C-alpha cells in the first residue's frame, strides 16, 4: 500500500515538469500585460467618448434654451397660458393650422378642433404655470431627446428666467435694474439654477439662465468641469452646462 506521503511525492514528480514549462512559457506574456493595462486604456477611451457626448449635450442644450427663450420673447408662452385660462375646457387652443401663424384664435375655433396640442406643440392647461410651460418647452425643443428625453434627460434642466417691463430709466411697473448683472438669478446648493419663472406678462427685457446637469458615466471626469459631485464617493460626476441670455421681447 502506498502511503499518502508517497502519493504526494509522485504527483509532484509528474506535475513539476508541467509547472516548470508553464513558468517558462512566454508566448502569452504580451496578452497578460495588455490585460493589466486595459483598464487604464479603457478609462482614457471612455473618458474621451464621455467628453464628446458632453460637448454634444452642451450644443443641444444651448439650442433648446435659445428656442425656449424665444417662445417667451415672441409671446407664444403668454398666449398659450392666456388661451388655457380663457377657455371653459381649461386647455389652450389646438392651433396646428393657420391659428398658429397670426390668425386670431377664438373659442369657436377651439370647439371645432382637436384639443390635443397648440402652437407650442403640447397641451397647456389652465393649471399650468409659466415655469412648467417653460420646462416643457426645454424638453420639446431638444431634437434628440424629444418628449421622452432619449439623450438629454428633461429632469436635468434647471432655469431661472426673470422678466422686466422696461429699461432702467423708462416708466413702467417693474423696470430692469441699471446693471443687469444684479438681476437675482438664484442657484441651489448644488450650483444649479432654481427652477423659476413667474408669469412673464408683456415682458420687455428677459434675463435667463438655463442649466443642464450632464452626468458622466466615467468616474472623476467631472472634476475637469468643476462638477459639484467631484470626489464625493458614490456620486456620479457632472458637468454643469449653462446658457445665459438677455433679450428684448418682440412687440406682441
Amino acid at each position, binding site marked *: 500500500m502506498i502511503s499518502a506521503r508517497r502519493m504526494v511525492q509522485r504527483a509532484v514528480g509528474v506535475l513539476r515538469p508541467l509547472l516548470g514549462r508553464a513558468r517558462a512559457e*512566454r508566448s502569452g*506574456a*504580451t496578452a497578460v*500585460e*495588455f490585460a*493589466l*493595462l486595459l483598464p*487604464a*486604456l479603457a478609462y*482614457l477611451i471612455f*473618458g*474621451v467618448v464621455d*467628453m464628446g457626448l458632453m*460637448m454634444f449635450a*452642451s450644443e443641444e442644450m*444651448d439650442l433648446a434654451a435659445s428656442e425656449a427663450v424665444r417662445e417667451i420673447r415672441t409671446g407664444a408662452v403668454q398666449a398659450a397660458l392666456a388661451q388655457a385660462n380663457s377657455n371653459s375646457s381649461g386647455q389652450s387652443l389646438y392651433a396646428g393650422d393657420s391659428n398658429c401663424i397670426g390668425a386670431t384664435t377664438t373659442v369657436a375655433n377651439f370647439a371645432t378642433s382637436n384639443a390635443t396640442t397648440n402652437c407650442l406643440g403640447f397641451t397647456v392647461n389652465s393649471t399650468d404655470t409659466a415655469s412648467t410651460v417653460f420646462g416643457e418647452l426645454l424638453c420639446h425643443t431638444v431634437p434628440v431627446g424629444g418628449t421622452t428625453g432619449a439623450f438629454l434627460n428633461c429632469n436635468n434642466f434647471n432655469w431661472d428666467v426673470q422678466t422686466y417691463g422696461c*429699461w*432702467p*430709466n*423708462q*416708466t413702467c411697473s417693474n423696470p*430692469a435694474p*441699471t*446693471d*443687469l*448683472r444684479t*438681476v437675482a438669478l438664484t442657484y441651489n446648493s448644488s450650483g444649479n439654477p432654481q427652477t423659476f419663472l413667474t408669469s412673464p406678462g408683456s415682458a420687455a427685457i428677459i*434675463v435667463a*439662465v438655463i442649466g443642464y446637469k450632464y452626468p458622466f458615466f466615467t468616474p472623476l471626469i467631472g472634476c*475637469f468641469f468643476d462638477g459639484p459631485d467631484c470626489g464625493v464617493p458614490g456620486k456620479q460626476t457632472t458637468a454643469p452646462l*449653462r446658457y*445665459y*441670455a*438677455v*433679450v*428684448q421681447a418682440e412687440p406682441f
Partner: protein
Amino acid sequence: MSQKIPFGYHSRSAFRRVVRDSRGAAAVEAAMTFPVLIAMMLGMLEMYFYMEASHRVTAAAQLTADLVGRQATVNNGTGPASSTPMSAIFSASLVMLSPMPVSSSVPTTSNSTNPAIDVASILFANPTVTTNNLSCSASTTGPATGESNGVANYCHGIDWELAVGGATAKANTTAVYTNFVNGCTASNLTACYCVLTSASIGNPVPFCVAGQSIIYVRVDYTYTDPIAFFFPIFLGSNQIVISESAFVTPRQVTYVPLCTTASSSSCA
C-alpha cells in the same frame, strides 16, 4: 598571449540581450503611448473650452447687436427718459458671457475691461445730404473705383460710435462705396442691396440703402486657457483675444440715434 577582447564586447552583448528580450514589451509600449493619449485628451479638452468660449463671444456679440437694434433711441449716460442707457446693454453683454470670467466693472469709454466692446451705427446717405452726425458733401465722395467720373456716389459713415472698455474704435469720417455687386449701379442704389467692402470695419457690410443704418458690434474677449497645455506651446501664451463682430439692421427705426443730453433734440 591572452586573446584580446574587443572594446565594448560585453556592453554590446548586454545591449543585444536587452533588445532581444521581449519581456515587458507591452508595458514599454503602453508607457510610450500613454503620454500621447493623455496629451490628445488634454488637447481635446483645451480645444473644447476654446470653442465654447468662442461660441459664447459670438452669441454675446449677436445678442448685444440685437439689443441695440431693438431700441428707438439710446444714450451714453444722459438722455431723455425714453432712451435706453447703453450701460445697461453693456452690463447685459457681461451676463451673456457668463460663466466665463469678466471684469467686475461695466465697460465705459474711460475704463479698460475684459471684454472690450465697440458699438457703431453706420449710416448711409446721399452725398449732398447732411444727416445727423454724418456730413456727406460732394467733395467727400469721389468716383468709386471702376465707375466713370461724375457718377453720384452714396456715402456711408459712422453716425456714432462707442468704444468701451478699451476697445479700438473703427470709426472714420466718411467713405464712398467701392464695390457694386448683384446688379447694383450708381443709379439704382436706393432700390437694391449692395455689398460694401470697408477697410475701416474689416468685414463686408451687407446692406447699404440710403437713409438707413446698420448697427455694428464687436466684442473683444481676452480668453485665458484654463489647462494651458498646448496653448503656450503653439501661441506662446495661454491667452488669446477672441474678437467677434455682428451686424444688425435697426428694428424700430431706420437708424438708432444716440442722445447726449436730456433734451430729445440732442439725439442724433
